[in-house]
């Protein structure tokens, strides 16, 4: 394979990862890292470096559209970024201390758990009332969004901001450690703990991922893990895919289908991670 062909292949996979990532509220790094390392034999350190930049690209590209449509809750995002950036900082430094296999195992376990929780809630879809929360009122986190499939403005209330903050710290740590956006942890934290609607959770997760990733990208850059030859096409491809996804698909996708797709991806990733941690 020539470098030119290699670049085209990387570009193609990146477009696919960006498209899927923007629909699911994940950065696409989870899809890209296995493709780059297993299929294209890229050294893991460069795969992680390229991934972290692509994560920022996906987030910013998709978030531009979500913010304009007022789908992302910017106040919730800002509040939770307190925890994700602190977590990302800890994670980027902890990655040197903790063994890679242990991280993969814990991560795989967390992913499988979130997939199961989401699956359970998918069956029991009856909407329970959201408990009142004084801190959420004080932070003015409640909002509304325009639902394309229902053709009406849907308002929602937010609860348990502190539980969200704690979960976001964990998500940030994982993000900093593995060079992924960890939207797969952010979406359940907002959707299940804070009770934001899934579409709002997905959009807000996308919006936050860039800031989380930027907090760890500096460390990866200084370590020399960001190789322009790989990160360049990844960055362009992922942005293109994310733009296509958020622009042309998001508003038309039904929440139930989105959730089913999301659970499938979570389970697949959990399996990959556990396998990686198990076999040296």
């Amino acid at each position, binding site marked *: *394979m*020539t*470098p*030119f062909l*290699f670049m085209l292949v990387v570009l193609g996979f990146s477009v696919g990862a960006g498209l899927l990532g923007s629909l699911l509220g994940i950065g696409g790094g989870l899809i890209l890292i296995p493709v780059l390392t297993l299929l*294209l*034999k*890229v*050294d893991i350190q*460069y795969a992680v470096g390229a991934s972290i*930049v692509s994560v*920022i*690209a996906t*987030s*910013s*590209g998709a*978030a*531009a*559209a979500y*913010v*304009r*449509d*007022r789908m992302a809750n*910017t*106040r919730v995002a*800002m*509040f939770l*970024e*307190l925890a994700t*950036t602190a977590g*990302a*900082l800890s994670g*980027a*430094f902890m990655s040197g201390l903790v063994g890679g296999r242990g991280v993969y195992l814990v991560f795989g376990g967390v992913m499988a758990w979130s997939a199961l929780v989401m699956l359970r809630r998918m069956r029991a879809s009856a909407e329970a009332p959201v408990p009142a929360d004084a801190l959420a009122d*004080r*932070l003015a986190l409640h909002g*509304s969004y*325009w639902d394309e499939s229902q053709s009406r403005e849907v308002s929602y209330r937010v609860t348990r901001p502190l539980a969200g903050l704690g979960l976001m710290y964990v998500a940030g740590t994982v993000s900093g450690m593995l060079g992924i956006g960890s939207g797969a942890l952010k979406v359940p934290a907002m959707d299940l703990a804070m009770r934001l609607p899934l579409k709002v959770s997905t959009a807000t997760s996308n919006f936050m991922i*860039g*800031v989380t990733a*930027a*907090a*760890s*990208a*500096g*460390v*990866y*850059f*200084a*370590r*020399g893990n*960001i*190789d*322009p*030859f790989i*990160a*360049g096409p990844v*960055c*362009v491809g992922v*942005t293109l895919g994310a733009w296509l996804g958020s622009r042309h698909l998001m508003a038309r996708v039904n929440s139930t289908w989105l959730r089913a797709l999301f659970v499938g991806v979570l389970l697949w990733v959990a399996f990959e991670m556990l396998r990686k941690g198990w076999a040296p």
Partner: protein
Amino acid sequence: MSEAPKPEPRSPEAATAAVQDGEDASLLHPELLISDLLRYGVAASLALVTLGTVVTFFRHPDYLVSSEALQRLTSPHPVPHTLGDVVAGALAARGQAFVMAGLLVMMAVPVMRVALSLLIFRQQKDRLYVGITATVLAMLVLSFLLGAAH
């Protein structure tokens, strides 16, 4: 953001109307400002990356035919990892340095977004959120400083 819900949030008329009302559009529609910052930042980054890629293939025509070069490019090797490296490479018209500059712009976009949010919350006199946003910004700056010292 408590103004009346708009049935078509994507329409640019909303922003124009706010300006015509003589009110500060950024006060009423911070979403539009943030959205534009994200879009133009990403566009600038992608332009640099694309330019750098074209320059790279122009300066290394063998990349189009030789498969030996790939082995070298995908195995562990030193890459520019300080701002000085990137600036020096760009001055020498090295394509990969332009790509790297583009990637650095991409990394800076979320940081600029938080800085813009800080200004918006200040304008809205929302003290609580000014504090929250300033803390996030401080942590981002800290991460870049710690990374450089690493």
